[in-house]
């Protein structure tokens, strides 16, 4: 099972990591990105989807996505 799939994630943005007992919160955008990551979408596809759904430009969408990916990596939730 991938690291991301081992997480328990609620629709409210609560993330529980069963291997360590840690919990985190994220927002609608975080949940959106996680969903796309689980579907193995590319970075470009995710950025395009963010631009469409959140009505932001390419730079903002890219920055938001990479910031969130950094957070997931830092917390060892993705490789």
């Amino acid at each position: 099972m991938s690291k991301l799939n081992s997480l328990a994630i609620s629709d409210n943005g609560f993330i529980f990591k069963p291997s360590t007992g840690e919990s985190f919160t994220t927002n609608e955008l975080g949940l959106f990105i996680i969903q796309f990551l689980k579907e193995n979408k590319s970075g470009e596809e995710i950025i395009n989807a963010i631009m469409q759904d959140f009505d932001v430009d390419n730079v903002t969408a890219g920055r938001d996505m990479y910031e969130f990916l950094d957070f997931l990596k830092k917390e060892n939730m993705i490789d």
Partner: protein
Amino acid sequence: MEKKKLTIAITGLNNIDSPGPGVPVIRGIKDSNLNARIIGLAYENLEPGIYMPGLVDKTYLMPFPSTGSEAFLERLEYIQEKEKIDIIIPNFDSELYLFIKYSTKLLEMGIHTFLPTMEQFEERHKDNLPEYAKKYGITVPESKAIMNSNELANLPKPLSYPYFIKGKYYEAFKVSNQSQAVYYFNKLSAKWGLPVVVQQAIHGTEVNVIALGDGEGNTVAAVPMRKQYITDKGKAWGGITLNDERLLEITHHIIKQTKWRGGMELEMIKTDDGEYHLIEINPRIPAWVYLAVGAGQNIPEMLCRLALGEKVDPVTKYEFGKMFIRYSWDLIGDIADFEKIIIFGEL
């Protein structure tokens, strides 16, 4: 047909800020299919479990283990004559020696226990952890047992600050310099005796496992937990069950290698690199046992069944993400109850 009513005696009713496991052990038994009458064995007259409504059917004061074996056996004989106890679950490290030493005598009296052997109990002592680790292939932090505070000035490398100073039975303090180390050495040696153990501090997250071994190398139950809220005494005031396969593997390995008999708690540090260092083995059920019950493994019930010689199938399933949160609660008691405990030593 109604099940035979068992009489089960439990120690560790001190549900205080450094809680004993007695109260949650009783809760586990009451949640189980066992038909039990509960006898509380208390060492102090203000242990909360004595007074908690609906918890114990009767309580007896016990002499402190330091009083010696004669007083211990005499008191148990008196209680046994009145209560016909089937099982005793001792929950204090400091009383285990006596219960293990006299387990055959207790059995002759009709009292069953399910405890580690004296060898198992002795070899996992804090002061013996390096030898234990070597024997069973476990990773432990560098440590040294010391008998004199002068030794603190010449600790063997690689021991360095910060390290923990640990009492023989309970308590540990992290120290960063010589004067702190000497202060806590004196404090702990006065309270718990010698030796005092110096153990290298390992950077990481503390994770614990409660487990039950059947004495033949099988792990009958095991639930890992991470403390979420720790008191200034280092006790878990909140915790959550984990899905940590490596931690369970280590637990199974230790129980298989040692043929551990009885309840136990493994205290480990998980480093950021994912390595596990065993820092302590507690040879009894820990105070957070009710979390394991809530997560699906009723360890007190299984321990009772093992004590009676029943075959207990190992349980591996439990719910992860189950939490416990302790709380304090003021009981209103009557001076008459307190009087009975003081004057007669029973309630």
